Every structure is written in C-alpha cells, then in structure tokens.
C-alpha cells in the first residue's frame, strides 16, 4: 500500500496531503549544474552505498536511465519525482521506501532532495522522518554547509534550512466565490507561496493547490513549519466557513451543480484531464458536505482517482501508449468504472 492509499491525518477534507523536502549537497563535489557525467555517477554511488549498507531492506534504488519516460512521468504525477528530475541531463537516481512516503532524488538541482509525504496535515511527523534520513546520510558524507548560511544549495532561494514544507489543499468554495484571490495577496506577506498541483509553473486544476514556505533562511525548521501550518489553518477555516454559508444560503444551486458534475462523470465518453479534475473536485466537495452519498465500501478516494487519470498514470493503467483522443476516451472509461453509484439513486 502506498502512502496516499492510507487513510490518516487531520483535516483530511481540505488538507489532502503534507510534504517535506530537504535540499542537501555534498561538500566534495560541485553542484549538479556543473557536475560531469563521471562525478554524477560517483555521487550516486556514494549515496547508494549508504542505503544498501544501512537500510538494505527498507529502500529501493532506481537508476533513472533504466526507467522509461512514461514511468518517470507517472512517478512525477504521484509527486515521487519533480518535473526537473524527469529530464536531468546528467545521471540521476531515485531511492525510496516501500510505500513511497520517503524518497531521495540524487542529482536533481541539488545532489540530494530528501522528501517525505503523508496524507492529511502531518508536517511535524514527516519532517522528523526526513530529518532521520538526513542524519543517516550526514553521518557518512560531508555536506556543503556554512555556519553563517546553513546548508548551501544551488539556488539561493533554498539556502539555510533547505526546507520546503507544503500542504496540498482542496479549496473549491474559496475559489468559486473569488475569495482565494484576496487570500493569495495576503499570504504573500507571510513568506508563503501558492502553486498549482504539479509545482512551480503548473496551472491550478480541480481547485487543488500547494501552499508552501518561500523563506528558508533565518528561521528554524520548526518555526517555518509552524508558520505554514497556522497560515494554512486560516485558509482551511475560511474554506469551511464559506462551504457552510453556501450550504445555508444556496443549497439547491449547490446541490444541483454537484449532481450535474456527477452526471457528466458517470456518463461521459470523452473526458480531458482538466475537465475531469474540475468535475471530480465538485464530487469530492459534495461527498464531504454530505450532499452526495455514494455506495462505497470505504475504499474509494477521489484524490487517488485524480492521480490515476493523469496522462502517464492512465497509460500505465492501460499498459499501452495512447494519443490524446485515446487518452480522453480511456479516462472517461476509467472514471465511469471507478465512480461508485449514488446511494438509492
């Protein structure tokens, strides 16, 4: 079972998942953007050796050159890899544990990107996990570190703690009422950024956003996490308040739009990823508010389906390469088959 298939965490309705990333570099090598092929392989070997010695049964090792590009993109859609890592010009490798909740990208923008993920709001706990992996590696290699600036990274925007903490949140009510825009302007002042579901330059889809810290220097890891958490909780509370008022004041229109979305998802023969994401977002909201009840055995999770319908994961599921039209058809099929029936409907 993967980390995202588990049911856990607090505020699971709005906060879908938590993610921690630590950027680290090896003292004896130049950063990946200046690394030769030979040095890149050495760095990989150095890290690989640590894991095969210290945690031989807990972690898998992948030489990225041996992985097909569709598998790489599928891993990226599951947030196991970054978009940059898919197309690195130098040798790179991925090390991850069984349920993919802990992963280490070797030779990304920095030599090491240690990542921990979990469902719901769990930043403190997963930071501790990532930090343990960090300690284990640091015990065997020298990191690029300065007393003054902390962990040195290729981009000065990561220097210091090298920490990027993020929550993935689902805020359809704030988005629909236009409140999100106002909140975005306000949170910029707290050194917090907002992005689409697939990072830096991705367009927001299905009302799913990543909220993360921008500042990495001058605050401790605990302070950064604490601040991100309190800002996110403000957003979560506002989302819940708007949901409540929509339910009170415009229940019928609200219900109608959710059933329409369910109707399209359960009948459509062609679905683009973007359309499917928007409709699934509506259904997710309807389920959470109790407006829509489905015949589920408890196994059905909308967010998993949101991941499965992404282009590469869809092709992996179908076990063949599909062009755009074929994908839209396959997506509609998958959604029709997966989406449970309405209770009593």
């Amino acid at each position, binding site marked *: 079972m993967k980390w995202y298939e588990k049911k856990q965490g607090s505020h699971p309705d709005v906060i879908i998942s938590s993610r921690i990333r630590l950027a680290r570099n090896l003292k004896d090598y130049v*950063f990946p953007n200046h690394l030769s092929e030979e040095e890149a392989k050495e760095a990989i070997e150095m890290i690989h050796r640590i894991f095969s010695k210290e945690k031989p049964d807990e972690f898998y090792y992948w030489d990225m050159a041996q992985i097909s590009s569709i598998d790489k993109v599928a891993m990226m859609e599951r947030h196991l890899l970054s978009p940059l890592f898919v197309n690195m010009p130098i040798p790179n490798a991925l090390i991850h544990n069984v349920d993919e909740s802990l992963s280490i990208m070797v030779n990304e923008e920095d030599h090491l990107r240690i990542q921990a993920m979990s469902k719901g709001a769990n930043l403190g706990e997963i930071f501790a996990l990532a930090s343990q992996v960090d300690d284990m590696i640091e015990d065997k290699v020298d990191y690029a570190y300065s007393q003054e600036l902390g962990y040195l990274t290729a981009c000065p925007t990561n220097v210091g703690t090298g920490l990027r903490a993020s929550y993935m949140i689902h805020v359809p009510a704030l988005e629909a009422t236009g409140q999100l825009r106002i909140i975005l302007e306000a949170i910029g002042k707290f050194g917090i950024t907002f992005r689409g579901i697939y990072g830096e330059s991705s367009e927001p889809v299905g009302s799913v956003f990543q909220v993360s810290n921008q500042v990495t220097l001058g605050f401790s*890891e605990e302070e950064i996490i604490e601040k991100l958490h309190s800002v996110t909780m403000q957003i979560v509370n506002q989302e819940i308040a708007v949901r409540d008022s929509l339910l009170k004041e415009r229940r019928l229109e609200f219900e109608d739009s959710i059933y329409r979305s369910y109707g399209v998802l359960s009948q459509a023969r062609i679905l683009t990823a973007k359309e499917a994401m928007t409709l699934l977002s509506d259904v997710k909201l309807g389920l959470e508010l109790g407006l829509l009840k489905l015949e589920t055995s408890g196994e059905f999770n909308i967010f998993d389906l949101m991941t499965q319908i992404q282009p590469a994961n869809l092709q992996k599921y179908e076990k063949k390469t599909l062009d755009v039209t074929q994908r839209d058809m396959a997506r509609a099929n998958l959604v029709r088959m997966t989406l449970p029936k309405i209770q009593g409907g």
Partner: protein
Amino acid sequence: MLCEECHKEQATVFLTQVMNGKKVEIHLCAQCAKKQKDFFYGDNPSIQKFMSGLLKNSNDVSQQEIDQKLLCPKCHMTLDEFRRTSKLGCDQCYEAFKPYVNHVLKSVQGSYRHTGKKPLRMNQSQLKDERIEELNSQLNLALMQEDYLEAAKIRDELYKMKEE
C-alpha cells in the same frame, strides 16, 4: 561634495580625465590638488596608479567590469552565469560572489543568518572552534588586566585544545 582624497575638505578642484576611452571626474580640495599637482601636470607615470586607486573606492563602471570577470575558484562559474541563471555552481560560489549572493538573499530571504538544524558531526568541530575563540578573547582580557596567572591557565587550556 567632499574631497575624494582626504575625505575631509570640500572639493573645489574638479578634474576631468579621459582614460581608456572613459571620462573620469575627480573632485579634490585645494590642498590635495596642490599635492597631486605633479601627478596631474607633470609627466609622472604614477598618474595611472593614482587614478586606479581612486576608482577602486568608487562604484565606477570599471569596478563592475572587474566583477564581470569574477570566477569561482572551485567550479569556474562566472558572475555573468550566476546573473543569467540565478543558480550557483558549488559551495565556494557563495564566497566568490558574496556581495551579489547577499543582494539576492536580502530580497528573497530577508536574512543572512541560518538558525536551523546543524549537521551533527560538524557540530563537534564547530563547538571546538567556538570554544577556542572564546578562550582567545579571555586570554586577551587577562593580558590587558595584567593577570598573568589567569593568562597562563587559559594559554595551557588553549594548547591542550589545539593538540586534540
């Protein structure tokens, strides 16, 4: 405007020189101008030296030209490359391009001081460095107060730490 030589008197003499195709203005007080008279009006070759000395202290175009050619000793990255990509090539770049990195840090981070996690292993040697620094300042203090007994004690401890 103050004299660029002594930085004390008002500049009353404005000299304009054209060097390497660039116009350079120098502002001096009467006193300093008189002193430099031979440099300016004589045939003395050290005028070049005088000029470049002045330029080093200013944010003149020439200084920027020198900076453009800055190179990181470890990864050989240039300042120009850093400016284009906003990425550094290795840990030494932080030192090599310090003023430029600090400029970026000020705008994106708002701070220059790491206060978070430290590598466990590095902590030991850093703690030792900090202790040595502390002992050194105690030693200076003891010497200033002519407390030679205390100074000798501190000195012995320093020897011991450095030997370890």
